[in-house]
């Protein structure tokens, strides 16, 4: 193949890896790359963001729903460091991403050049791997490896840092036939003996539960999980990132566990005699106080990352490999077992501890808004959320039947994720309805991207759950810091006018009866919409396990005297 510049090689490699969308922002050090973009358009489309953090989050959201590797571009120095939050977010949630950053010219590296930052070094703890390319001829191999590493095994972000002179240098483009990395062999296939042991445990179990996590979604093992649950008659509890790995309205779906999980789930986990943990890593938000977690349960851990096995919880049996492969193997050995006592017990817990109900109050409640969103969409949309109370309510009061339709920042808990991630989701799913539930705090962390949304005409529907507070932080102040509300009340802008300033339709609902019309209008509108819902300020998010407490100590929804509306899917 002919000689190419380094920049051409990066673009050629992206084409070969099937990249169609890039989110980024140009600068001095990556200009050679941008110079190439017109030649590759429209095969590869570039979306100009307003802040690099959002390029990373957009690539993250894109990757989660497209099942492809997300790609973002940034320049050296501040451009690259602005990516860091987005990279850390993708790292914590195992999202495949390749970040290509420009670097100062190679002779300046290490001399504190203008806009120099050691981004390969900075990102070591938050990437699967990071490359600094010092020879243009290596670019094809590095890019190939970067995509391979990002997308296989437990996915994650990879950073490729290329100095400007290397992007301009010429070399022969040699595309490696295959990737050879001696030290990288992710497990895929479980040990058949362990599968046999797991099947025995399932056959013996009287009170089993399945804990399904993000790994099920990443492996696209929806059908396999369903076969296990239905085939062996085991209730399914989905972690925050596991939501939409199993149909939300399925009778065996019990919802979310953990800190703001359903009361019945936390008690069921504590009383269970077998936990089948599929593609989840026993996060502290799930387990509560670790030493008291599920004291009577044996554990089958289905996990692709060897380092997660035994990190927090010691499993009885480990199926090391891709969740889909593991579940398929396991499903060959299961049998249907009636567990009337166990299901009776869980039903009883659900009856006595409703966990999710919406009170009849004069004020507009946030849960009500989310429930109305569910009614209006029938759950048939992609739901992106930020981080905080609204995120938990979106997990509790919405039922996700569509596989992989819930996009949220789980591990890192990045406020402001909701706007750029929704951009990525909409770019990946052009014809589909995308709702983004936002907090009024998080919305203001990344709202400059409304300009980007306006420019590309992405018809995203934003629902700001505006309680004029950093709500979750305020809840902690109320519960654990004597209600001492320091630095949590927010003096917000007029979100409707703000939307209009970006050329986006702005709508507002302040009373219950306005909620449904606003949602309808937003959905009938042909472009992006920002809906502001002015909700009750002091609403707390329950159930709740106080930090450091055991799951047994879950505080259920407080019982109010006012009339209750039963929530059903």
């Amino acid at each position, binding site marked *: 193949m002919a000689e190419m510049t380094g920049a051409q090689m990066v673009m050629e490699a992206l084409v070969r890896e099937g990249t169609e969308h890039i989110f980024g922002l140009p600068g001095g050090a990556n200009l050679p790359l941008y110079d190439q973009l017109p030649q590759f358009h429209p095969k590869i489309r570039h979306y100009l963001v307003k802040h690099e953090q959002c390029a990373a989050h957009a690539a993250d959201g894109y990757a989660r729903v497209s099942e492809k590797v997300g790609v973002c571009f940034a320049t050296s120095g501040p451009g690259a460091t602005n990516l860091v939050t987005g990279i850390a977010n993708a790292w914590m949630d195992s999202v495949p991403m390749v970040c290509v950053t420009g670097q100062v010219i190679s002779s300046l590296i290490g001399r504190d050049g203008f806009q120099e930052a050691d981004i390969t070094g900075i990102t070591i703890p938050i990437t699967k791997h990071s490359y600094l390319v010092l020879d243009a001829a290596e670019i094809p191999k590095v890019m190939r490896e970067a995509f391979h590493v990002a997308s*296989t095994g437990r996915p994650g972000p990879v950073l490729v840092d290329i100095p400007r002179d290397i992007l301009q240098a010429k070399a022969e483009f040699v595309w490696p036939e295959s990737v050879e990395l001696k030290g990288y062999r992710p497990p895929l296939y479980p040990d058949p003996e362990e599968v046999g042991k797991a099947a025995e445990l399932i056959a013996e179990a009287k009170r089993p539960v399945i804990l399904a996590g993000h790994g099920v979604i990443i492996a696209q093992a929806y059908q396999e999980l369903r076969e296990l649950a239905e085939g062996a008659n085991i209730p399914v509890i989905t972690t925050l990132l596991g939501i939409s790995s199993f149909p939300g309205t399925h009778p065996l779906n019990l919802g979310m566990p953990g800190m703001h999980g359903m009361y019945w789930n936390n008690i069921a986990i504590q009383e269970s005699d077998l936990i089948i943990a599929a593609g989840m890593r026993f996060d502290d938000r799930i387990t509560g106080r670790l030493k008291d977690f599920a004291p009577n349960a044996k554990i089958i851990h289905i996990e692709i990352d060897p380092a997660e096995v035994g990190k927090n919880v010691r499993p009885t049996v480990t199926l090391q490999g891709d969740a889909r492969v593991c579940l398929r193997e396991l499903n060959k050995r299961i049998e249907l077992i009636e567990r009337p006592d166990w299901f009776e017990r869980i039903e009883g817990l659900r009856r006595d501890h409703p966990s999710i109900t919406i009170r009849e109050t004069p004020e507009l409640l946030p849960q009500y808004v989310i429930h109305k969103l569910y009614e209006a969409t029938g759950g048939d949309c992609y739901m992106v959320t930020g981080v905080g109370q609204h995120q938990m309510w979106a997990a509790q009061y919405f039922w996700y039947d569509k596989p992989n339709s819930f996009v949220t920042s789980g591990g890192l808990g990045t406020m402001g994720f909701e706007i750029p991630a929704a951009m990525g989701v909409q770019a990946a799913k052009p014809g589909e309805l995308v709702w983004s539930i936002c907090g009024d705090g998080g919305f203001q962390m990344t709202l400059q991207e409304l300009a980007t949304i306006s420019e590309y005409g992405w018809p995203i529907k934003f629902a700001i759950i505006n309680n004029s507070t950093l709500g979750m932080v305020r809840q902690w102040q109320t519960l654990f810091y004597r209600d001492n509300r320091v630095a949590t009340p927010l003096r917000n802008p007029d979100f409707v006018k703000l939307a209009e300033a970006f050329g986006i339709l702005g709508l507002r609902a302040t009373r219950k009866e306005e909620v449904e019309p606003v949602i309808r209008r937003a959905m009938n509108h042909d472009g992006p919409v920002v809906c502001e819902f002015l909700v009750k300020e002091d609403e707390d998010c329950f159930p709740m396990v106080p930090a450091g407490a055991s799951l047994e100590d879950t505080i259920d929804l407080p019982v109010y005297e006012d009339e209750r509306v039963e929530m059903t899917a």
Partner: protein
Amino acid sequence: MTRRNNLQKHTIIALVEDRPGVLNRIASKWRQRGFNIESLAVGHSEVRGLSRMTFVVDASTDAEQVVKQVDKLIEVVSIRDVSAESMISREMAMIKVRADKSNRSQIIELVDIFGAEIVDVAPDSVIAEITGEEEKIESFIALLGDFEVIELVRTGRVAMLRGSEVSHPQEEHEEPERYQGVEPPYSAK
């Protein structure tokens, strides 16, 4: 080093690619995860392009996590906790001791007992070099405490399995049979 000591500390051997930044990545894992590393020794291995490192993890650290986390690094080809296995381990130390005519012979006597060596003699000092297991070096240094130790320098531990077994056999990696109907996730198309 005695067996009992083996149970307390962990000796881990890793075969890593000899590339810039590898040590940084490994050290970053230790720091990030709060692993306490007592010593580290790195050098070329018998394979070109690969270095072998030996590191010792203190008793408070979960050695299994150390091995698994470090193994996640792409440049780490192979890693193994050899603590429970039959192995030879060695460290080296150089100790500079204040010495003159009056006490030099006493120091030499001690050096002979330990099978150490005097590698430098000056009118008012000597440098003793000792190689051996950690405990031997410890007790040698302790006994030299009767004299005035001016400077002490020690290497990290290096270790090797006894017998013909290789610490990191270069296993042939066989691609497992393609699982019917299952594509690995995110296959780039």
